[in-house]
C-alpha cells in the first residue's frame, strides 16, 4: 500500500539529501517525493509517497522524526485531502493526427503547451488516476518523454492540516 506523508523540515541545504538518504539507507521504498517552500520561508514542506505496510510506515515516521532537521510529520494517508500531480507528456504526432490528440486532451481538461512538426507536449494536472488515465490514452500515439512532479497533498479543512495524523512521538 502507498502512504502519503507531509513532512515539514528546516529549509537548509542538504536537508533533502538527509531525508532521502535516510530512507534509502534503511531500505524504505519511496514512490515519489516533492519539496517546496512554505508560507514560512525558513521551512520546506516535503510530500512523499512511501510504499509499505503499517509497521514499515511507523518506522519511517519514527526514523524521520529522529532527524533534527525534521520539524513535524503529518500522515495524510486515509485522511480527506486534496491530492494533485502535474505531468508533462511529449507525444509523437504528425499533422494528420493532431486533432485526435487535441480531442483526448480536451476530455481530460488538460492543455497542449507546445507544438512542433512531429510532436506536441501536453500538460495535465489532477489526481494520480487522472494523470495515469491520460498517459494511457496517449500511448498509442507514441510517448517520447514524460516528466511528473510526484504527488502533492493537503489535508482538507483546518483541523486536519494542523493536527490530524500528526506524528510527534
Amino acid at each position: 500500500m502507498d502512504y502519503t506523508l507531509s513532512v515539514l523540515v528546516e529549509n537548509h541545504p542538504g536537508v533533502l539529501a538527509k531525508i532521502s538518504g535516510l530512507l534509502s539507507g534503511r531500505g524504505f521504498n519511496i514512490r515519489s517525493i516533492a519539496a517546496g517552500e512554505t508560507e514560512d520561508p525558513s521551512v520546506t514542506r516535503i510530500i512523499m509517497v512511501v510504499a509499505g505496510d503499517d509497521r514499515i510506515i511507523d518506522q519511517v515516521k519514527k526514523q524521520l522524526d529522529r532527524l533534527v532537521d525534521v520539524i513535524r510529520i503529518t500522515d495524510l494517508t486515509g485522511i480527506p485531502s486534496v491530492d494533485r500531480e502535474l505531468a508533462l507528456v511529449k507525444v509523437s504526432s504528425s499533422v494528420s493526427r493532431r486533432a485526435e490528440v487535441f480531442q483526448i486532451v480536451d476530455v481530460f481538461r488538460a492543455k497542449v503547451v507546445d507544438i512542433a512538426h512531429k510532436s506536441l507536449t501536453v500538460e495535465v494536472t489532477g489526481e494520480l488516476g487522472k494523470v495515469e488515465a491520460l498517459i494511457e490514452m496517449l500511448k498509442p500515439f507514441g510517448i517520447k518523454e514524460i516528466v511528473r512532479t510526484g504527488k502533492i497533498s493537503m489535508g482538507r479543512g483546518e483541523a486536519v492540516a494542523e493536527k490530524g495524523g500528526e506524528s510527534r512521538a
Partner: protein
Amino acid sequence: MPLFFLGAGKARMTTSGRLALKKRTGAQITFDSFLREGVEVIFGYPGGTVIHLYDELANYPQIRHILVRHEQGAIHAADGYARATGKTGVCLVTSGPGATNIVTGVATAFMDSIPIVVLTGQVATHQIGNDAFQEADILGITRTCTKHNYLVMDTADLARVIREAFHIASTGRPGPVLVDLPKDVITGEAPLENPEKFEVRGYAPVTMGHPGQIKLAVREILKAKKPVIYAGGGIIHSGAQEELLALAEQGQIPVTVTLLGLGGFRGDHPLFLGMLGMHGTYAANTAVTQCDLLIAIGSRFDDRVTGKLETFAPSARIIHVDIDPSSISKNVTVNVPIVGDAKNILARMVKILKEQGDVWKATRKPWLEEVRQYAAEHPLDYEPSQDVIKPQYVIQQIHRLTRGEAIVATEVGQHQMWTAQFYRFTRPRTILSSGGLGTMGYGLPAAIGAQMAFPDRIVFDIAGEGSFQMNVQELATAVQYRLPIKVAILNNHSLGMVRQWQELFFDKRYSETSLDVQPDFVRLAEAYGAVGLRAERPRDVVPCLKKALSIQGPVVMDFIVDPEENVFPMVPPGHGIDQMILAKSDKKARRVVPLTFPS
C-alpha cells in the same frame, strides 16, 4: 547608550558597552564556547585547515589538547572519555583525510549512543565543491552515522551551532554531532555572542514517561509469574543503576544485561543472570526464553541479543522503556511502550510497586528458584590448565588483582566476550567496548580517553593481538602523556573469533585467520618507550600482572594463550537463543531449553 550583543555573560555586562561590540575570530569563538560547555580535554590532530584553531589553542591553557598519532585514535579516545565520565567527548581534526579517518569512530559512537562533538576542518567556503586540496564532503559521508551534523558557512553562526551541537549530542538518546568548519569561518570575525537561549524546533526528546503507561507496566509486573529485566546501555546513559536495582529488588525480578549494559547492575548480585545473547549465559538465555514478561530498558533488541526473532522470548509480553521512539517495536512488537528517560520512569515504577506492599513477593519464589537452577546447571566455565594459559584465567586474575574496580576497555573479538563474561563488572562506566559496530582497534585509544579523565584509576585495555595492532600507534600517545594504561594482549596467534566460526561452522577451513607472523610485542612496547612483559605459562600470569600494576607508566603484557580456546556458550548464527553450544564437546547446538507455551 551602551550596546549589548545578545547579553554577553554576566561578567561582561558590568563592563563597558564597547567590549560587547568587540569582534572575535572563529577560532576564539570556538574555544570560548568550549569553555562555556565545560570542555577540559580535546583529542586531536592538526592540519592545514585547522591551523588557525591550533594557533589560538595556546591562549586557552584551561583546555588540554591530547595529540594522538592517528585521527582514529582521537575519535575513539573522545569516545572512551565520554563513556568513562558521562560527559561529552571532544575531537578536533583537519579536513580531507583527517576527517575521513574519524568516520569509523563516529559510526562506533553512533551505534552505541555516545555523546561526542567532532570538529572537522574544511576548505574555505569559496573552494567547497571544487575538489580542493584535502577536501572531502564529510557532511555527506557522515550523514547516516551522526546524530546531526553542521556545515558552518558564517562565523556569526558559530557560537550558536556549537551550543546546539553540545545540546544535541548530550541529551535524549546521546550521539555524535559533527561540526564542519571551513578555514575562512575559523579566521573570520563576528561579534562576541553568548547564545544562552536557543531553540532547535525539530528536536525535543521526551524524557518524562507517560504516567498511564507506567501504571500499565506495573500492573504487568504484578501479574507476571516469570518476569525478566533485560537492560542495555540506556541504563548507563541515564545513570539509572540505582533505580534498576530498586526495581529488581522491589519486584523480585532477575536481571540480564547487554554488553553495553554491563556495570549497570552489580555482577555479583543474586538476581543477576549475566549477559544474554550470542555469548550470553545459559541462565540468561534460558530465563528470557521461559519468561512471561520481558522488561526491556534502554536496549534495542539487537540481533546479537535476540538471535532468531521468532524464538526470542516467545511466550512473553513485553514492556519497553526507551528514550528513542524509533527503537520501540523496530524488531519486536511491544505490548507496553514507554518513551522517556529510564531514571525517572524506573523511579516512578518502583514507587508504585512499593505501594503494593510485600505480601505478593512470595509468589515469585518458584520462578527465582527455577532461574537459580539454570545458573547452577550450566555456570560460565572453562577447563583450567597447568600447561597453557587460558584467556579466561587471565581475566579472572585481572579482576581479582584490581578488585573489580578497574576501568576496562576492550577491543573486539573473543577477548571482548571473555571480558564481558569473566570480569564481573559492578559499577557503571567501567567497561568501554564497541558493541554495535564492533570496531577492532577501539580499546587502546578508548583507554587513553578514560585515563585522561581518571589519572588515578587503574585502566586496562584487554586486547587480542589482532585488534591491538589496528591502533598500536597510540602507544606513543600513552607514553607522551605518561598514561599508566595496562594493555593485556590475549595472544592466540589468530583472529580468534573468526577462527572460532571457521572451526565450528566451516569444517575447520581456516581462511586467512592465522596471525603467526607478528611483532615481538615486548620489544615493540619498548621501542615506543613503554614497558613490555610476557607470560607463557599459567604460573607466570599473576607475577606478570602484579609487576605491571607496580609500574607507573604504560605496560604491554603479552599473554601467550591457548590458541584452541573458544567462547562458550555460543548461539550459532541464525539460531534462536534457546539453542546454545555450551562446550567444545557439543557437536552442534543443543536445544537445551524445554519450550513451554502457555495456552
